[in-house]
């Protein structure tokens, strides 16, 4: 591509246009085999969540007591049925909607709050004391108890579960971001930006934040896993998904009573959770390496 740009009189031939940042990152990510596997799993799950009605022949909540506790590979129910005769495959497929949405919403909200607090606390020494004490306060509650408290105030619903989990994620995220900010803000390039007159906001968001991405991404993907597990835990306690809503955690807790007679009721949703957690972790790792310009994969 031989584009030319006119420069006050003299012409300057432009070399082949550099690829866009995003494409470069994507290319780097695709070279990482493990990340590709994780990406495929996530894409499959998203597809599963979107096209759920087309992938199942059974209603996930319709009971059929005549066909309860069918083992896997039964006719018409390849993953069997639960104690109410509901198709496990349908419940897994529809459950992915809830798990993914709650996970993504919870992590995004948690990051939004945590990154903001962490940046402000790390950058402004005066705010640091106040913000970190608030964070300590949030930390002092056991996670599940805090989530229960929030849900008790907001009422039982899946969105409130997401909010509760996000609030629970804020302190850890704020701490991690603050730590990185504290070390990065002492770097000479931050001093250099100050010396050319860059504003605080510019320094925080253009120079400090991008250099904190590595720990933030790792945190986000790990938290994604925790969020799904916490949703399951809250559902187990009766605060998350209400029966008969299909939700992986709720499925495990309901299947627990039949561990010995029908182990697939706990194992299959367990595998679903595990695969999701694994996929998000490896993609997160790959992403962290891909966005680091110092890493040539």
């Amino acid at each position, binding site marked *: 591509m031989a584009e030319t*740009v006119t*420069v*006050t009189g003299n012409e*300057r031939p432009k*070399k082949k246009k*550099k690829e866009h940042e995003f494409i470069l990152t994507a290319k780097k990510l695709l070279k990482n085999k493990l990340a590709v596997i994780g990406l495929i799993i996530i894409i499959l799950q998203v597809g599963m969540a979107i096209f759920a009605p087309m992938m199942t022949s059974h209603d996930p909540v319709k009971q059929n007591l005549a066909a309860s506790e069918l083992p896997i590979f039964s006719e018409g129910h390849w993953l069997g049925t639960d104690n109410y005769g509901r198709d496990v495959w349908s419940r897994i497929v529809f459950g992915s909607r809830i798990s993914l949405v709650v996970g993504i919403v919870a992590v995004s909200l948690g990051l939004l709050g945590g990154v903001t607090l962490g940046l402000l606390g790390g950058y402004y020494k005066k705010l640091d004391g106040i913000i970190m004490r608030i964070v300590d306060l949030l930390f002092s509650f056991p996670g599940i108890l805090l989530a229960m408290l929030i849900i008790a105030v907001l009422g039982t619903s899946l969105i409130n579960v997401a909010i509760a989990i996000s609030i629970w994620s804020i302190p850890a995220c704020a701490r991690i971001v603050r730590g990185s900010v504290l070390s990065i803000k002492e*770097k*000479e*390039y931050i*001093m*250099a*930006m*100050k*010396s*050319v*007159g*860059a*504003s605080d906001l*510019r320094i925080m968001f*253009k*120079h400090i934040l*991008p*250099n904190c991405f590595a720990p933030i991404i790792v945190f986000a993907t790990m938290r994604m896993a925790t969020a799904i597990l916490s949703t399951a835990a809250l559902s187990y306690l009766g605060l998350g998904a209400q029966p008969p809503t299909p939700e992986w955690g709720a499925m495990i807790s309901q299947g627990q009573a039949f561990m010995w007679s029908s182990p697939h009721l706990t194992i299959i949703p367990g595998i679903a959770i595990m695969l999701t957690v694994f996929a998000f972790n490896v993609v997160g790792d790959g992403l962290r390496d891909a966005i*680091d*310009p*110092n890493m040539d994969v």
Partner: protein
Amino acid sequence: MAVLTEHEAEKLSNHKQVLLEVTGIRKYYPIRGGVLQRVQGNVKAVENVSLQLYEGESLGVVGESGCGKSTLGKAILGLEELTDGKIMFKGKEIQNLKKKEKLKFIKEMQMIFQDPFASLNPRQRIGHALEEVFTIHTNMSAKEKKNTVLDLLKEVGLKEEHYDRYPHEFSGGQRQRIGIARAICLNPSFIICDEAVSALDVSVQAQVLKLLKTLQAKYQLSYMFISHDLGVVRYFCDRVLVMYLGHTVELGSVEDLFNHPLHPYTQALLSAIPRPTVQKKRKRIRLEGDLPNPADPPGGCPFHTRCPIAQDKCKQEKPEWKEYGSDHFAACHFAGQSILA
């Protein structure tokens, strides 16, 4: 005292226009301790420093690590808040300015940093890093900025294709050139070089110094050249300021200071310059002891704990900052007395 060479005299008479005047600046870092984080004392990084910098000159600032050279530079630029003192730049007071007014002065005063590996954001392409300076200070279009930056890269001896690279793809010398490009891009009149070449190889040092000289001639720049390398200072600077423990110890033209050092500390520093020679071994002055704790500086002359010619007077009285020759200042009760004797 020292007789000025013709060249020197000419230089002085031509460049007598004061660009920057620093009067009695102090920078203390409070030491906090105890349960309530009360201030328990101060680290006196810069103590009562006054100096003048003329237009178009290079002023070297030398001294051991921790003597307050870098802090002095940062304080002048406003990167460190002053504890006390006054800074006049082009006849205007610039300390404690409001943000908006400060931006105007920032255009005039720039800094080149010590570590070329740490002074560039590792996640920013260097083209974008340089463009950002224009984004802050001008409202050029994206195209104008890009073209200016490409010209700038050439000016400091880099190539156009370097525009899209990340800092880690450059060598130390090239990175320092980028740092220089960032410092000169707003057409400043004064640049502080904070150990700008200390992190570089000797051959690269020479190239970078040459570039700095070329730019100085082209844009009538004044430099404040902070360094601990006396050889480089002798080659590069017109005048030299020697600092010890946050105090100014001696100030004079390169000729005067290197040939007729007045202060015993300067004499000791000069004797430490390695010189290849076949003549008889020169006597080397070795300073005993360590730099005193700047949080608890010795009374009287700050140098008396290590000074080979210190007497009782030095322990009690702080020596005055006095002019001993034309533009040759020192702070010593026994200025000019050789410590070799």
